[in-house]
């Protein structure tokens, strides 16, 4: 399954980059969401997969019984999801603000914000 998920991550990355390279900022945002999903999955898969045993210590035990899922990537991914959401929300507000100011979502038309020629 690790191998299948690795391929899935590759596909997600490819789709995400294709979307991010679009001139349309909305598509860029879709790509951003996909690539953060891909990143989270990549971290999760790198910690190896163990089916159906959450990293919990049962009542009365001092250690987890048997083999449980790797807790470290889970902790990393958990915060990464929330931060990824923060990043997405911030990008979304920037998009809104840019549209309000510039009146377009086409990034090639947004170059007015940058100096045109060297001075």
């Amino acid at each position, binding site marked *: 399954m690790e*191998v299948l*998920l690795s*391929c899935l*991550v590759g*596909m*997600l*990355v*490819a*789709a995400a*980059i*294709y*979307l991010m390279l*679009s*001139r*349309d900022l*909305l*598509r860029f945002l879709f790509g951003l969401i*996909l690539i953060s999903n891909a990143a989270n999955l*990549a971290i*999760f898969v790198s910690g*190896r*997969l*163990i*089916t*159906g045993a*959450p*990293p*919990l210590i*049962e009542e009365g035990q*001092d*250690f987890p019984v048997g083999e*449980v*899922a*790797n807790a*470290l990537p*889970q*902790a990393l*991914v*958990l*915060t990464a*999801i*929330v*931060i990824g*959401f*923060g*990043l997405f*929300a*911030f990008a*979304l*507000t*920037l*998009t809104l603000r840019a549209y*309000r*100011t510039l009146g377009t979502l086409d*990034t*090639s038309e*947004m170059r007015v914000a*940058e*100096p045109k020629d*060297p001075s």
Partner: protein
Amino acid sequence: MAAAQDTPLPSSPGQALAGWIAVLIASAFFVGFWQALGPVGAGGSLRWSWDWVPSLGISLSFFVDGLSLTFALLISGIGALVMLYSTKYLAGHKHFARFFVYLTLFMMAMLGLVLSDNLLSLFVFWELTSITSYLLIGFTHTSPESRRSALQALLVTGGGGLALLAGIILIGWVAGTYELSEIRAQGDMIREHGLYLTILVLFLLGAFTKSAQIPFHFWLPNAMAAPTPVSAYLHSATMVKAGIYLMARMHPTLAETDVWLWTLTIAGTSTAVFASFMAVKQTDLKQILAYTTLMALGTLTLFLAADTGYAITAAMTFLIVHSLYKAALFMIAGIIDHSTGTREIDRLGGLAKAMPITTAAAALAALSMAGFPPFLGFIGKELKYYGALAVQSEPLLVAGAVLLANALMLVAAGLVAFRPFWRGTYATPTVPHEAPWQLLAGPVILAILGALFGINSDLIATPLIKPGVDAISGGELIPADLKLWAGVNLPLILSAVTITLGIALLMVHRRMRAFLDAMETRLPSFDRGWDRFLDGTKAFAVWQTRVLQSGDMRQYLYVIFATLLVAVGGTLIWTGAFQGIPEMPGLQVKHWVVVLLIIAGTALTTITNSRITAIAGLGAVGIGVALIFIIYGAPDVAITQLLVETLVVVLFAVAALRLPVMKPEDGFPNRKLDALFATAIGLVVAAILITVTTGPINRRLTDYFEASSWIDAYGRNIVNVILVDFRAMDTFGEIAVVAVAGIAAWAILKGPKEDAK
């Protein structure tokens, strides 16, 4: 410019206080170091040490031996006199107090530099002297010339500083310590080491830029844009001598090889000869002095090349001689400027009547500089000839160069200290008048010391020069005696030749100057070369910024992802780590369902032109990912994923009301190329992940967390325990990011509104 204080305003009491505090600090240091003369003169040394950054081996340790004590006394003593001088020189200046803050900071940095026993803290102080001298040289910040000179000095010495840092790190790595007192003992090992040459080159780059050896000399004359007291301080005993100090300090560790000997001999000789010709060609008092400083630095470098007792004694003695007379003469140049309103030697003459004390001090200092007996300068010069004849490389050539430089030095001394006072009378912008005592104290004291030390050389020989030579040579060489009269021998004859030649050249000075002017126009100008170098750097920066920061987001993304593709994909191919796609055993229907759900969602998002469809597709992907988390035992992550997915949909739904509908992408060119590019990166990412997951895994951290989660941290949910206990500091940083993102977005939306165009 600097000295344009023709009618000094009365300084306010607060200002005057700032000046006197600075004088007091410098004097206190001087008295403190004076106390160390006894133990150091007796052959001992003092050392203090505090741990600073123990994990990096950086300690704040100070070490006083003959060499550092000599420097410390010169820095604090001349510092006190220069500060006293400045209280009057800059009286009424708008930034009077600021000046003293800079000057005091500079003095501290300089003291730290010569007293540090740890190479890394020495480097910190080294850079501090660069920065504070930048502030001092650019003190007249309204003048573009001043700013340019300051920046030039900073960049040249700062660039050398970077090389020095690299050298320090290498030597620390080779020697296993950054403590100079320990490195010194390992000189033989370091000289044998394969990295010796690299270390040497890096250290010499640092020293040569700081001490203005050819070809890094050009910043020093430009630094004359500083107020005269700064020049007096920086170019006598401090800033420019830092490089000399470094070479002397590293002498036991790095010297005694052919590379050292020849590099320093060539650099020192060429700098000394070049600078002495340039010196006599100048017409501005300060410029003459600047080039004679260069000459002195060249001579010192030359003597540090050798490892004979004579050469090192000559270096130590000349170091002190030069500091004394150069500080005095700079201050005198300031007095002349102050008093007459000009520093052009062709417009000065006959000041002796109006300024008798200045005249006397100038005469004493200049006689020492020109090397007449019985001044310390004479002993210095004799030792130079002894030293030059003892240099192992090319004694005759070196002695010849030293002779020529010394003769020209005599000319320069005549130009600075005799002409303005005796020959003829010229109308000057202001009527000459004698300077007040604060201005006179420095030159007079220093000039008298030059004579006193010459007549009774034991005053400095035992307490400073002998311990200094011991420190430079690592105690292996026997210091030479300082004698006014050593009988008729070759050095004495050379002295006589020097004086005769010097006086002769002084006679024909004007013709020589014209000749040198003509010569100079044929030589390439380092100063202009520097400008071209800077312009080139700036043009390159502009070009690079244009390329990388085009303002087109697609291009940014292409640069970023192409780097990823080349770096990661290239590494994969180069190392051959990717072994192909292995078997996929144990796949069940539920796995395929989830994977297909994600693929379908992704495909939908990628190809659709409808926002609603795209959001639905993203939702499918999000839920699919959450399902994977559930299947593989990550309930916390799955819940988080689902909640975030919900919020994403809500946010998109809200924002979509304000945003235009998506246009079909048919009109966009290059989308096929984009697709190819994206696919390539996807393949690389998949390959790297497969490589990672089929390799071994290190579960050390996970094992630790599993073992201690309940026993140590009283938590049964290991993921949560990691988040709030084991890695709580990380989590804190992460929630800080979340908080900042939320508030920044809020501020963007609530901020001042600009209407759409």
